[in-house]
């Protein structure tokens, strides 16, 4: 069996809003094997970015655990933490905000190496130039500043920086949402290449299902803080089982298509006032009595295909 790089174990994150708990992530569990890519889709506010921050150990969980290479990211000693930090990196949606504006491109990519005392000034420079090549940024940008690069180039620099420490896992949080489709295509192809050549595992968060399909072996669908479906990409797209996933697929915009009169009725629920029972029931056209009362749990109903729905 393939080695497991990431174990997410019933992790929860509640934020206090006034006197109430906002359940941003409310019990998510899954494993990710090495060298695999997982796409996460789901509505805005469903907890995708919060889950990413939990996986990186950037915020403490309310409950549950995340293990990276068998070690909890929350219960590490300082020196272990230092080591762990190297293993997982993140790339954000807005490359401009994640690069240091007053540092050159070269320095931006070098920064994590410097922080981890890797190499000498000389060797670091050659590592940086090498990384620039890998992500397709010409060497003459070494001394340029971020604002002199296009959005797509900046995102490549952010990716180069994330690769600098040779992490095992990278989390991409909507990395191509703000890029034009031709640059998006470049970055997506780059990810596929890196995965093949560097044996990278990654988690890719995005709203565009076609984009997610292109780069992911597996897809997880989130809704209101929980996973509602989890499967191999092909299975999920060819046979979406959860009613929310089905609606998502129906809503994908198509060239020359019509704006769907989205069949989702009812109010979009709030994590502040989550509905009783299944979080999707107020918008679900198949809802039964039980759906308003009992929260369905994620169950594997076919090999590698899990859903949280009372219909099955």
């Amino acid at each position: 069996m393939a080695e497991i790089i990431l174990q997410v174990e019933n992790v929860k994150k509640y934020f206090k809003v006034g006197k109430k708990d906002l359940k941003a992530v409310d019990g998510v569990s899954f494993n990710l094997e090495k060298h695999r890519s997982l796409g996460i889709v789901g509505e805005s506010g469903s907890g995708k970015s919060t889950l990413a921050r939990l996986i990186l150990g950037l915020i403490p969980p309310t409950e549950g655990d995340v293990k990276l290479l068998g070690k909890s990211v929350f219960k590490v000693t300082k020196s272990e933490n230092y080591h762990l930090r190297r293993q997982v990196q993140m790339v954000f949606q807005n490359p401009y905000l994640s690069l240091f504006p007053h540092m050159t491109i070269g320095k931006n990519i070098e920064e994590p190496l410097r922080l981890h005392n890797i190499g000498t000034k000389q060797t670091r420079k050659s590592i940086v130039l090498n990384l620039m090549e890998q992500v397709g940024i010409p060497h003459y940008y070494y001394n340029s500043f971020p604002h002199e690069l296009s959005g797509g180039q900046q995102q490549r620099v952010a990716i180069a920086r994330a690769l600098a420490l040779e992490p095992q896992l990278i989390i991409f949080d909507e990395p191509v949402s703000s890029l034009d489709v031709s640059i998006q295509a470049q970055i997506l192809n780059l990810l596929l290449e890196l995965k093949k050549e560097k044996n990278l595992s990654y988690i890719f968060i995005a709203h565009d299902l076609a984009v997610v399909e292109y780069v992911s072996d597996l897809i997880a669908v989130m809704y209101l803080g929980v996973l509602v479906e989890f499967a191999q990409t092909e299975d999920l797209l060819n046979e979406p089982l959860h009613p929310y996933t089905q609606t998502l697929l129906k809503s994908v915009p198509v060239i020359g298509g019509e704006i769907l009169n989205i069949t989702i009725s009812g109010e979009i629920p709030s994590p502040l006032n989550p509905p009783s029972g299944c979080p999707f029931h107020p918008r679900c056209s198949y809802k039964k009595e039980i759906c308003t009362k009992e929260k369905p749990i994620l169950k594997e109903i076919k090999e590698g295909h899990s859903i949280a729905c009372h219909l099955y």
Partner: protein
Amino acid sequence: MEYLLEIKNLKTHFNTKEGIVKAVNGISYGLKKGETVSIVGESGSGKSVSVLSIMRLLPPYAKINGEIIFKGENLLTYDDKKMRKIRGNNISMIFQDPMSSLNPTIKIGQQIMEPLLWHHKVSKNEARHKTIQILTEVGIPSAKERFHQYPFEFSGGMRQRVMIAMALISEPDLLIADEPTTSLDVTVQAQILQLIRKIQEKRGTSVILITHNLAVATMVSDYIIVMYGGRIVEKATTEEFLKKPLHPYTLGLLNSIPILKSKKSLNTIPGQPPNLRELEEVGCPFAKRCGKKMSRCEEENPPRIELSDTHIVYCWLYE
């Protein structure tokens, strides 16, 4: 019918220490009441700068030339005070980056009400009522409680919906939406597009939509404008755009789109986007990356080819 907005030969250049950035290099188009035009194109091709020029929301070192005729008057002759009356009242804008355009220290509800209180002089109670209604309409659940929250307590997509609410609350004649739905899931995206259309039908609002999603562009707009290197390279009705896209850059874009369950690998356009500081005055900005380049492409400006009254392409191939 008359144009609500007519842009004539708009040029916007930035005088920076490192040289002049030629962000927008002579673009022209018109928009009638109730129409929607989508602007698509390269990152950095001047889409945002072109609409920020309309709103006059650019730093002082930006030089805007040409004419921006709105309801018969050239906005470029307006002073700041007159522009402030137009902004957020006759013309509203939904910005690309919701976090940096919301004030982090002011409660969401307060921020949305502001233009109402500022321009329409409704009572505070009415404003609050309207705000909660519009928040619900753009799909913010528990609007009454959310009203009192700060931007950081919202997810990216919810902040974007707040921006949309803010732009719509004053019922503008022209709505400029810069990537309004990129951070939303597709079901909410469809709802927002419907919402914009509903308001458009009710009030005859005209819309300029900037988007990277060509599918969305074709689904909502009457016209599509393709920009590259600060210029318009192709302009057509959506129908013409779908049937007969012509410019090599337009074709390159269409080939880069991933299509669900198609299993095709993506083509990219080789080469790098142009450096706007080194942009030549003559020649086609796309020539360096174009697979169909001829020698004259870099030496002469591309001709304006009219394939119909509404379909215009700037390219020597179709001469």
